[in-house]
């Protein structure tokens, strides 16, 4: 098992800089997920680590060794591709054997290893099948098996579940987590799906336009987003935002005035901010509470009933839509007037430059 370290990694295509200086260190046995919207450079970054893309500048260290100029096959990594990239003319056994054969491993040893991995992944009945005869989930497992037999220092996954249907994706997610626990291998996983990121990661790296927006544990990102982008990106349905005027703050919190004149005292620090500055208040749909009367009232425009929960879309007087996630049995109807309560301890404040105010108390799960 190995550590991976990125030191100010950059990548330029022609004149455009795609990866703008990323530094990151990945510990042994850690499961790191790169997440971000499409075009954020997460796949490029993974391919740079794999050696499939050149590194323009910066250092990539695996186990403390600089590997910038080492061939992909010699870095001791194994990659699972989005399309699985199985060799279509070889059967499952030969697919897994290919890398081992090229590395000159003796026949008996190869066979023992492949059979062991096939047993772990329940692929034994399919060893003589060609990839074309397998289902999506089975192909996925073969691709993972092909990575495991090589006994790599680091596993790389490039959106491996995006070609599977929803049910199978959920199942493979659990299997991958279990497999990671069993093998204890350092893993780098790229996805655009935040559910995958939240459920599997030890550490999430949120990327946007080639820069790191935040690095942290899943719940750290959820409870203490560093800026507006992370706040908007993590969580589904996304966080609600409205503008407010900063009024003043002390060591225990900051007070802001909302559009309708009501004020809110949020337990976040606000060093050096002038009263009167425009700030953004953010609150997740699951934290907004519905009330029949009171301030912050709006009209219910859409109701999405998902059974266990209900999503209520409320049109506020200033035209903005606030989404409220509430109990599945709530009786509110479309076109009725409702009031919203915003519990201050669940509110986030963002300065005009998008950065979040430091919370006075860290969430216990995101310490």
């Amino acid at each position: 098992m190995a550590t991976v370290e990125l030191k100010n990694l950059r990548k330029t295509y022609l004149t455009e800089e795609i990866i703008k200086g990323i530094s990151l260190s990945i510990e042994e046995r850690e499961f790191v997920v790169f997440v971000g919207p499409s075009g954020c450079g997460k796949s490029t970054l993974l391919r740079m680590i794999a050696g499939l893309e050149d590194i323009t500048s910066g250092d990539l260290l695996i186990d403390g060794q600089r590997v910038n100029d080492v061939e992909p096959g010699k870095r001791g990594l194994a990659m699972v591709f989005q399309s699985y990239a199985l060799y279509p003319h070889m059967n499952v056994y030969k697919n897994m054997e290919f890398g081992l054969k090229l590395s000159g491993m003796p026949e008996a040893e190869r066979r023992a290893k492949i059979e062991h991995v096939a047993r772990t992944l329940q692929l034994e009945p399919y060893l003589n099948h060609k990839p074309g005869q397998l289902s999506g989930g089975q192909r996925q497992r073969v691709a993972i098996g092909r990575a495991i037999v090589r006994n790599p220092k680091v596993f790389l996954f490039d959106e491996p579940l995006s070609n599977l249907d929803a049910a199978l994706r959920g199942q493979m997610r659990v299997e991958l987590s279990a497999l990671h626990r069993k093998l204890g291998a350092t893993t780098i996983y790229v996805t655009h799906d935040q559910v995958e990121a939240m459920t599997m990661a030890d550490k999430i790296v949120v990327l946007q336009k080639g820069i790191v927006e935040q690095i942290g544990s899943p719940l750290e990102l959820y409870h203490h987003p560093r800026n507006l982008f992370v706040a908007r990106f993590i969580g589904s349905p996304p966080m609600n935002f409205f503008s407010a005027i900063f009024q003043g703050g002390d060591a225990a919190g900051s007070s802001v005035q909302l559009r309708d004149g009501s004020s809110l005292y949020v337990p976040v620090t606000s060093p050096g901010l002038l009263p009167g500055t425009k700030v953004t208040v953010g609150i997740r749909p699951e934290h907004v509470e519905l009330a029949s009367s009171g301030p912050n009232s709006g009209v219910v425009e859409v109701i999405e009933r998902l059974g266990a929960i209900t999503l209520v879309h409320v049109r506020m007087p200033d035209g903005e839509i606030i989404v409220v996630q509430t109990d599945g049995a709530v009786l509110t109807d479309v076109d009725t007037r409702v009031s919203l309560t915003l519990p201050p301890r669940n509110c986030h404040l963002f300065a005009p430059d998008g950065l979040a105010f430091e919370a006075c108390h860290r969430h216990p799960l995101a310490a």
Partner: protein
Amino acid sequence: MQAVLEHSPPAGATVQTAKRTGFLLLSPSVLILLVWSIVPLVMTLWYSLQNYNLVDPTLHGFAGIDNYWYLLTDPDFLHALLNTLVLVAGVLVISIGGGTLLAVLYDQEFFGRGIARIMVISPFFIMPTVSALLWKNLMLHPIYGVYSAMMRAVGLTPIDWLARFPLMTVMMIVAWEWLPFAVLILLTAVQSLDGEQREAARMDAAGPIARFRYIILPHLGRAISVVVMIETIYLLTIFAEISVTTAGGPGVASTNLAYLIYSRALLQFDVGGASAGGVVAIVIANIVAIFLVRAVARNLEA
């Protein structure tokens, strides 16, 4: 709904009408195809059983299997048959071997690739007669040819290619014409290879040769069998190149079946003998086609 059901004719009748219409619409093309292929075939079969020589009108009438007997016992025929097979096999090996390597080469990024690709394809657009003449007079001529000049420049004696190695030279000319076709088909096949598969092979520490041997070549299997099939069909009937360069000679050194039939019919005016040759050629082509189509079809299914 009820009304519609009552008024619509029974289903069987509709099918009958549709069948008749289909047959009527198809019949012109079927008729033309019949006239085009069956009539010449029957005429060839008929002539092959006749004594029919244009220079000797007194000799005529039913010949039985004489024409076939003379043909099959003629040493020229065996020679021509062998030449046909050597030509087909030789050109296939050169065009597919070279074509595969060139296809992989032209798949790489390099400066001027677009122009280079057009140039490698262009021999295919030149008429066989023209390219044979170009090779005969411009490149290989023992006195004026480019190769002769090159050989003289380094002090070697020029070779009269068409006289010394007639079959090899014809093979080379035909291969030059068909190499672009192979490159074209194989290049598109190489380009259709999934990029992630190549990358997976790189992650498996496969070098360029291992990638070619284990990833690219198997991927090209189908395209290669298509090229083999199409080229074989055309190569069995090479004519223009032989006619323009060696006229089948010296002797019958570069005569293939197609040229043998031509020389029987139009140089010796023996229509009966030539027809027998034609029938034999049809039989051979069909034997080859059956084996080929079977092999290729199996490959395409896999």
